[in-house]
């Protein structure tokens, strides 16, 4: 465990010092600007720091990956953002990227190669699993009495087939864990994907996040875990609608590690 103070440096700053970090932390728009997601960003920095992983961020040189633009249908905006990012990443000769957003993860991993961006991309839950298995972080056991459940994000789970990494991390928390009825490949969307986050729902009986929160409440959890800043917003909104925001907390996996370890 590192005793040094946690200072997050940009790739530009590190380059000026002649340093190349182990990994680039891709913060993403939600992680950068959304007040709730900023907490996850800071928690993840703490984990990296405590594990002794050297990392850099792009800071103001980072742009949206283009995921919402592309899925909304706006290929021009997607290509502009993506090509800009690839130019920046290639200029710093980035090889390895970790991000706490499954949408950023998917776009950089699966869509950037065709545009000239080839990197090893990890979702933060994959890196967390690795750090735990390698013993670089030790997770203190959590509150045995709090019941937790887990929501698979579409873009980590169904789209990229990663169901195990987050569950391994959950195992390490040593808490009372119960799966949701619709989980893994059958997981239900939170309602934010495909740029739905940035528009009103189409007319219907209820919002998608309401449906998902109702399902989660069936398990009577104290904590709903997720791995995506957009899912976390959607689930939190759903809980507010049910007036359950005091009884049930929504956390990213990273936050629970930080909480259990008192970092």
């Amino acid at each position, binding site marked *: 465990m590192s005793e040094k103070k946690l200072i997050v440096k940009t790739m530009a700053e590190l380059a000026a010092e002649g340093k190349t970090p182990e990994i680039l932390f891709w913060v993403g728009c939600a992680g950068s600007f959304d007040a709730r997601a900023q907490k996850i960003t800071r928690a993840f920095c703490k984990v990296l720091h405590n594990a002794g992983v050297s990392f850099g961020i792009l800071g103001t040189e980072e742009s*949206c990956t283009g995921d919402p633009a592309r899925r909304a249908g706006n290929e021009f905006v997607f290509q502009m953002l993506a090509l800009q990012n690839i130019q920046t990443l290639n200029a710093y000769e980035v090889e390895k990227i970790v991000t706490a957003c499954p949408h950023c993860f998917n776009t950089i991993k699966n869509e950037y190669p065709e545009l000239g961006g080839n990197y090893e991309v990890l979702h933060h839950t994959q890196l967390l699993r690795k750090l735990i298995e390698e013993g670089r972080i030790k997770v203190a056991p959590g509150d045995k009495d709090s019941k937790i459940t887990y929501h698979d994000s579409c873009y980590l789970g169904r789209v990229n087939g990663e169901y195990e990494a987050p569950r391994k991390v959950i195992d390490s928390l040593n808490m009372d864990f119960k799966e949701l009825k619709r989980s893994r490949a059958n997981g*239900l969307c939170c309602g934010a994907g495909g740029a739905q986050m940035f528009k009103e729902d189409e007319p219907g009986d209820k919002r998608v996040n309401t449906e998902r929160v109702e399902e989660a409440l069936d398990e009577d959890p104290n904590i709903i875990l997720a791995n995506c800043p957009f899912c976390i917003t959607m689930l939190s909104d759903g809980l507010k609608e049910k007036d359950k925001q005091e009884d049930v907390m929504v956390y990213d996996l990273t936050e629970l590690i930080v909480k259990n370890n008192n970092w």
Partner: protein
Amino acid sequence: MCDDFVEWLYISPQNDNAPPMEVGQIVFIIILALTFGFAFFKYRELINTILLAKKVEIEGPMSRRFKNLFLVAFGQKKMFKNFLPAIFHLFIYTAFLITQIKLIEIIIDGVMGSHRILATPLGGFYTFVVSFIEILSVLAFVATLVFLYRRNLLTIPRFNKVEMTHWPKLDANIILLAELVLLVGIFSYNGADIVLQQMGVVGYPDTGALVVSSVMGPLLFGGLDQSTLIFIEKAGWWIHILAVFGFIVYLPYSKHLHIFFAFPNTWFAKLRPRGRMENMPEIMNEVKSMMGLSEAEEPAGDMEDIPEFGAKDIFDMDRINLLGAFSCTECGRCTAACPANITGKKLSPRKIVMDIRDRAEEVSAKLKSGDKKYIREDKREEDQKLTPENFDDGKSLFDYISSEELHACTTCNACVEACPILIDPMEPILKMRRYEILTLSSGPSDWMPMFTSLENNASPWQMSDERDKWKEDLD
């Protein structure tokens, strides 16, 4: 009883020494020729309809295509996510596959005027194969009854969505009822045959003890006189083969086309990662040249041809999209998994796929008519012939699929995951979104500020803060 009719139908089992053709034989050969002639033209038309769509590069290793073909199509792997329907479907499916072996004999008998020509030469093996078919046929019979019950008496949501209008519902029941008729045919044909063998009637060679019919035959038909038995046996034979021919002719109009098309559909299913939307190289190259990343390209064509992006009609979809639409069995597993549909939105992935097929059939029929009123207005004077290139009937996929449906998709891939035969209902939705945004410059009003913000701030939110302001609260 029915002697005249039997006489007419009679495909004489006795005449070994080059007999004159019987009426039944001639009728059979005519029906056989008509069926296969019709099938040839109709299936060719279907394939030509699929070829109206864009050519698509077949990418990825053959080994993965073989794997999909064997596991997903032959092996029904994805059906088994839901065990009960899967097992009943497996009964019907294996009965269908195995019965094709018997069909070889039926066609030879029909053409040659013989009766169970393979029974004597194959001996015990014949008994085994036909018995095996009989067991599967009993299972298929039960499964068909279960399916009729599920579809009509239980309220299973996916069988009762808005797109399940009169024809799709009728189509499903027609096939199930036809299956029952076919199976009744098989058991009449085998059952009466067993009794005739026991009576020692000439021309009924020993088939061995058929596992079902050697019990069922005497039970149902025992004690009937010879001519009635021959009538039942012949009628069963004709019902069976006419039902098979009926299927061949009916399938091109039905959702049951999947019994053939599921195989190519799993073979051709795109192998790129699910999370990778199809790239648009023409836009990528234009943006690259705008950003000075590549040499500016000469604008292709003159200004009259303003390029259209995304998909407006079936011509802009690719052939795999259309193959998928024709392969769809309308089972609705996609729709049952769709978060938008579950929460009462108008979007139903199954409807999208069905709409693409309906539109493709409409375009195909109009092209076939050759009517010059379907030639695009500005070409109507000069062009003599209606072709896919000058086709314009004033309609498009947008007359079938509303913007409201397109806008409800969360791109969660649940529909893609759910399809038992690897149809991708999501890709057409995203292609049509591209058309709306890039060609029509329309779309949900909420998305316009998002695009502006992405262009100006590189974030979907209009933010005045620096991107790394979160660092300030790090302790």
